[in-house]
Every structure is written in structure tokens, then in C-alpha cells.
């Protein structure tokens, strides 16, 4: 795995890597990918891709309302709040 790929994956995951870490992660990720790539040796012609390992489908619930958390509890784990909203650093709405 190239260093540039490691940096890209780190950026997507919002991880800040020290220069020394980039090399070691590149090696480790390469090892992991090679390990997983062994699966490609398995003959899968004519086998439907599996969507879920459980083998079940249609786990559904009826459209019934359950209780919400109190606001104070909803906000309890937030690094910052003003008692009503979660407060975060200023963002540009690009979403």
C-alpha cells in the first residue's frame, strides 16, 4: 500500500498520523490486505453475493412511537452543549 493511500484513508477517517506512523501503517495495512486477498482463491462462480450473514430477511417493526430521551440525557455525553443544542466548532453546510 502506497503512503499516499494511507494518508488518504487517514484523512477520510479524520486521523492525524505522524510521519513515522505512515510507513508502519503502510506495511501493516499491506499485510492485512494480502491476508484477506487469500479469499480470492475461493471458487465463487455461480454463488450469489451474500447480503447478510444471518440468513434472515424482513426484520420489521410496526410504526409505533416509543419514549424519547429527556433533553438533558441526550446532551449528557456531548463535549459541549448549551442545554438545548449540541455545540460544535463552526461548520460550512456542505452536507
Amino acid at each position, binding site marked *: 500500500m502506497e503512503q499516499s493511500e494511507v494518508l488518504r484513508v487517514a484523512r*477520510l477517517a*479524520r486521523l492525524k498520523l505522524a510521519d513515522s506512523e505512515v510507513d508502519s501503517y503502510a506495511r501493516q495495512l499491506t499485510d492485512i490486505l494480502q491476508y484477506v486477498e487469500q479469499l480470492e482463491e475461493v471458487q465463487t462462480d455461480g454463488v450469489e453475493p451474500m*447480503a*447478510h*450473514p*444471518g440468513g*434472515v*430477511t*424482513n*426484520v*420489521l*417493526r*410496526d*410504526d*409505533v*412511537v*416509543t*419514549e*424519547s*430521551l429527556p*433533553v438533558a440525557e*441526550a*446532551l449528557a455525553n456531548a463535549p459541549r452543549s*448549551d442545554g*438545548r*443544542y*449540541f*455545540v*460544535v*466548532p*463552526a*461548520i*460550512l*453546510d*456542505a*452536507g
Partner: protein
Amino acid sequence: MDHQLIVGLEVHVQLLTQSKLFSGCINRFNPDEPNSQTDPVTLGLPGTLPVLNRRAVDLSIRTGLALNCEIAPFTRWDRKQYYYPDLPKAYQISQYDLPIAADGWLEFVADEETGERRRVRLIRAHLEEDAGKNLHDDSGRGGESRVDLNRCGTPLLEIVTQPDLRSAADSRKFLEELRLLLSYLEVSDCNMQEGSLRCDANVNLKVTTDDGHEVATPIAEIKNLNSFRGVEAAIEYEEQRQLEEWQRTGLKMGDVGGEKETRGWDADRGITFSQRGKEEAADYRYFPDPDLPPLTVSAEWLEEVRATLCEPPADRRERLQAAWALSAYDASVIIDRGRRLADYFEEVARLCGDGKQAANWVTQEVLRIMNDRGIEIGDFPISAPVLGTLLERIVSDAITVRSARTVFADLLEQAEGSQPVTVDDVDRVIDAKGLRKVEDTGQLEAAADAVLARNAKIADDVRGGKTNAVGPLIGQVMKEVRGADARAVRELLLKKING
């Protein structure tokens, strides 16, 4: 040089469920009490598991069928990863390569005069969860943002069109027809101001150069348009901007720097502006969500949902014109005000047997009062059977239109006094006010003759040109013949006096 505008829309529709897509947390627009509608699933707390809302699937299938889509017999759920404060899990559960509905179309009326319809093909409609809402500090740089997660997890259907639209006006008309259809289907309240219907527009131009070459300009995706006017204005602006940009730079789709760009719409300034750098195209790293088993839709389930479909507004508009001899304008006024008003009109028309009469009353009296009071037809105090019965009395020549207005006003007043108005009240008021037309013209003639004989002086005055002097005589005739039509009596008297 010539150019052609090319537009495709992505429409996000919040579904009208009681609870959210993957938990029992209440689904309700409630910006005044931020973060009061969350639960561990909504907050993405560790150890929680999503469970799919059956109703959201029903409404998605209903929409897909009404949009002439194929409903996928097998779909699954994918994680779309991105970091944003309005999405606490850091991924959105969505449908990537197996949307619940695909390959549909919807037609809109492009030309109201001719009724010409244009068809827009739909690529897909997939079900996903909505994110929360970020509120930004407008004071300037260095501020902070606030996050309300009430909306987070609301079922959202994303409908994606082919780039089949060719003008800003057509784009708006298409979106209006789509909204009307969705509201007829009762799958969403489609309130653009509250964000239950939101639209992104993908816009670019096909430019034909003077030497006959065709080139495409880079695509701009204009995000989060939240009004019909905004959709039309933003696309109009973008058409002009891209034309000027192309003339200035010659940059084409596919060139370096010609990648797709995300733009916002500033309604106050009437401009679009670049939001996301072209170089950092989103990379969502979709993969199947292991927390959710796949969904299969059986033929029986499909038929069950199909039975809940209603006549599409476009078809109903045409049928009203044909069945009730309505003008295109009247039919549109009735249809565009929503399914309940269309139902109301049709019941009134059936009961009185005269579509034109029913349309006159519904588009004038009924809509005027609804607009004055800011109410919908469900809260209108005169029910369809009552109005239908009243209008039947006009159609069968039992009362005049003028008398019917009097009865109508009387019934409204009765409803004001919180006395529910029933069908029986129609004839009761007609008789109490003596408004039933006298069909026996002989009786009317005799009364007129008698009154004229008693008032020779007034008759002379009228004959001498003081036409208004006839007034008191009309009153006398009507006193003798209850239910006589004042206008008819006036005409009869004038005819007799003036020979």
C-alpha cells in the same frame, strides 16, 4: 453558438410515519424543542441496533408504484460514511446499489393551453435516514454551530431523475407535479418550508459551437433548494453563469478543473456559490450494513400496497374536465388544492348533477372562505352532502342561485354557532325563508295584476321613466307569493307596466 440547458433533479421526501426509520423515536417537525426527539438509536450510541419501520417501506413502495417504477423484490442497506455533526454515527444508512424502486417516470403538463405533457424518466427512488439539522452562527468567522438531532433518523425517500429537463420553468413544473402526486398519495406532507420536501438540481449545458461541435460544460449540483421559486431561479442563474464561464474559460466536462462541483443557493442575493472544492470529491466508502438483514418484497405485499394507490392528480385533472365539462383552469384549481378538495368537489357534483355549478361554488365560495379562514376542506363547516343538496335545489329549479347564496350564508352562520349543519337544514332554511321558487306562473301573474291595479299611480310613474319606483311593488308581490324570485317579479312587473 447555441446552447441547451440540461437538468436532473434529486428530490428528498420525508415520509409521513409516526416513528423514525430505524427506531420508535417520534417523527415530527419540532424545531422549537431541539433534541427532545432522540433515543439511543438516533444518537448512534454504542450497542444500539436499528430495526426497520414497516410503514416506511409501505410508503416507499406506494410512491414507487405511483411513479411507474419497478419495485425491487430484494433490497438491502448500505452505510454511507461521512463525518458531519448532524450525523452522530458518522454514517448514514442508505441504499446504494439495490434501491427499493427504479426505472420509473412521471409526466408533467408543460403547456397549460394545449395540455401538452412531458415525461421525465426516473432513475431510482431509495430509502434512507435523514440527518439532523445544523444551525450556523451568522455573526461571522470564528463562531460555533449548533446541532439539533430531532430530524435525525426520519425516513427519507430520495427520488432521482434522468437529466431529462430542459428549462428552469419545466424543472419547477415537474417538481410541482411530483409534490402534488406525493401529497395525493399521502406519503408526505411535502412542506418545503419545513424541509419535508427538498431538492438538489444537477445542471449543465450542451454547447454547440459555431463550427458545429457539441461540448458539455462541467456539472454543478445545487444543493438544498427549499422552494419552487428557488428551484426555478437557481437553475436560471446557473444557466447564465455556466454560459459566461464557458465563454471565458472554455472549460469542458472531463477537463482537469472541470469536475462536478457542489454549489449552494443564496436566495437573498439570487446567486449560486461554490461550496465544496472540486478536488475533494466525496468518497463515501459504501458497504453493506451488517446490522440490518435484507428486505424482500413479495408479490402479495406489492398487491397489498397497490390497493392503497389513488388516481394520480394528472389523470384526475383530465377526467374532471371530461366528466364534468370543466375548463382546464377550473379543473386545475380544484386538483391543485389537494386530494380532499377534489373528493369534496366530486361528491358535490355527483349529488347536484351539474359539474359546472359545483365547480363555481367550490372554486369561488368554498375556496374563498377556506383562504379567508386559513383552513383546509376537512375543517370546512358545510359538508359535501349539504352543499350538494343545496346545489341540487338550484339544478332542479326549486330555488334561484341568489336564494342559494342566502341559504349558504345562513348555514355558515348556523355552523358559527357551533350547530352542526346537516342535509335536512337545507330544505328547512329554504322553507323558513320562503325561498322555494313558485313554479305556478299563473299565481305570480295574478298577484302582479292585483298589485298593479291597487297602485295605478306608481305604475304611471314607472311608465313615465322612474323605473326605480317599481321597488315597493316587487315587495308587495313577494309578500303574496312567498318564494317568488325578486328579479323575475321585477321583470314581470316592468313588462306589464310598459306593455
